[in-house]
């Protein structure tokens, strides 16, 4: 098994105890832990260079601006993009709202369709619902195959000129299934639709290059890839960003302000009104440095091996059902499951007593829960700092849950 074990020392939280046990953190799909290098980068920024950006002729302001814009270059090149097409946002949610409001409001109308999948996170559904309500467009859903991947077999049936946007996630935060980027991309292009990729769970876990995937917009969050809260990125094709309206007005995003009207700064600043998350950008850059040093290929391999092991071990537990692809080449390291009649919330409580952090709930994907006909699922999700022993502890604790619920 590819061994990233030594990296664990870089994550201070991993040595903390929870309920008398060493923390087993299996909730990285919700948010990831941070290496010391990310925390130090932000701390150093605040202790040495903190100032507002873009506005000043003094040394600190210049340093802060260079660090902020330097972070943009780093985050951009991490996804093979140009800095000029990379916008810092508060996170994936804000990025997708930018697209929906900034592009969708002006380009969608009565009878238009937004094609999504039933596996989308609320962040990639609710903004489209709001825009649909404003414009008279409607959402059309693709559902899932028996193996929990997006079912594109009846794509023909829903694909026509009315489809103006195809919005889907690169990896489901519930099933772990990878999104059919190629198939949906080609389909979208064939009817001239815009392609929006929710990459919140994709970019953190595998190499992504925007010059290799054919999408118009891509969104992701720093906090899901070792970076701080409060920042994420929106990447878009130059033409798309040009035709998009800003969704916030204020300082820094303007070119000229008159009493009644204003003109906008060039992309990307057009979309960054007000004081941006500066320290957060610095932390974000440190996170992509860390990931780059480890190597995204290595991370992907590590997670694939760990997931293979986890699926194998979980299959030993009676009455346990995994909601996600069995084929590890179709999925990432996020494993949702149910265990007998034990409610996921109860599972999470029992595991937590052993120091194991998993999530229980609808994972901001209620339409998927309804589709799967489950009230909720329990979810274990892995990242580069997880090791096979933690899978073993998870399995032991699940067996204990069976005992507590009196299941033989």
């Amino acid at each position, binding site marked *: 098994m590819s061994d990233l074990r030594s990296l664990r020392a870089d994550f201070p939280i991993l040595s903390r105890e929870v309920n008398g046990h060493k923390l087993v953190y299996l909730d990285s799909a919700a948010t990831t832990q941070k290496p010391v290098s990310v925390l130090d980068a932000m701390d150093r920024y605040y202790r040495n260079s903190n100032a507002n950006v873009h506005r000043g002729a003094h040394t600190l302001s210049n340093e802060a601006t260079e660090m902020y814009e330097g972070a943009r270059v780093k985050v951009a090149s991490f996804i093979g993009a140009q800095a000029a097409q990379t916008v810092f946002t508060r996170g994936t949610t804000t990025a997708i709202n930018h697209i929906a409001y900034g592009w969708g409001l002006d380009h969608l109308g009565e009878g238009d369709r937004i094609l999504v999948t039933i596996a989308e996170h609320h962040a990639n559904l609710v903004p489209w619902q709001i825009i649909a309500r404003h414009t008279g467009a409607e959402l059309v859903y693709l559902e899932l195959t028996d193996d929990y991947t997006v079912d594109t077999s009846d794509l023909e049936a829903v694909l026509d000129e009315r489809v103006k946007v195809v919005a889907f996630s690169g990896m489901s935060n519930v099933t772990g299934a990878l999104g059919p980027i190629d198939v949906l991309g080609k389909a979208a292009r064939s009817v001239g639709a815009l392609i929006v990729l929710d990459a919140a769970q994709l970019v953190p876990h595998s190499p992504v290059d925007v010059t290799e995937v054919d999408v118009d917009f891509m969104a992701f969050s720093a906090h899901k890839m070792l970076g701080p809260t409060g920042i994420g990125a929106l990447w878009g094709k130059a033409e798309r960003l040009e035709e998009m309206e800003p969704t916030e007005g204020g300082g820094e995003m303007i070119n000229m302000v008159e009493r009644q009207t204003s003109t906008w700064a060039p992309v990307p600043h057009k979309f960054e009104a007000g004081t941006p998350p500066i320290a957060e950008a610095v932390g974000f850059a440190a996170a992509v440095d860390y990931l780059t040093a480890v190597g995204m290929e290595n991370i992907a391999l590590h997670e694939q091996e760990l997931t293979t092991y986890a699926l194998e071990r979980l299959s030993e537990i009676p009455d346990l059902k995994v909601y996600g692809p069995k084929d590890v080449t179709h999925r990432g390291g996020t494993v949702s499951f149910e265990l007998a*009649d*034990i*409610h*996921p*919330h*109860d599972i999470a*409580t*029992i595991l937590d*007593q052993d120091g194991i952090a998993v999530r*229980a*709930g*609808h994972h901001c994907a*209620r339409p998927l*829960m309804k589709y799967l006909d489950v*009230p*909720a699922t329990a979810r274990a999700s892995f990242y580069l700092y997880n090791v096979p022993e933690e899978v073993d502890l998870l399995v032991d604790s699940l067996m204990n849950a069976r005992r*507590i*619920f*009196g299941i033989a």
Partner: protein
Amino acid sequence: MSQLDELYREVILDHYRNPRKRGSLKGPHVHAEGNNPSCGDEFALDVAVEDGLIIDAAMQGQGCSISQASGSMMMDAIVGKSIDEARDLTHKFKVMMTIVDGDSPVDPERPGAVLGDLEALQGVRRFPVRIKCADLAWTTLSEALDRATDGDR
């Protein structure tokens, strides 16, 4: 007993697996719904009230053992009681769960004397995030009772 065994007592698992009065009422009744969006628990109930008395009740919804057991025990506890008594019980329950302030209604000398089976839910207090699970049914009940007495005010 471990904290977990304390939480998942026999009687709670029994109510979870065999909830009392699941279903809906046919005759005249008020209906109320509640949910905890963060964990996905959903709870709904029908309450039939006649002359200030709860003559029947039924629950629907889905959720964790705590929310279901709490709802099921509540069903057992309220049918036959007056609205005022049910409100008083709700208050006592919330005090026991430390959701609202007040003197503990539980008498350590006479376990079960005041809140009956419901006292088994005391173990939840050690799990602060689960308290809202236990509370869901009761908050929904309060809404239903408010609705039932709306005409009176």
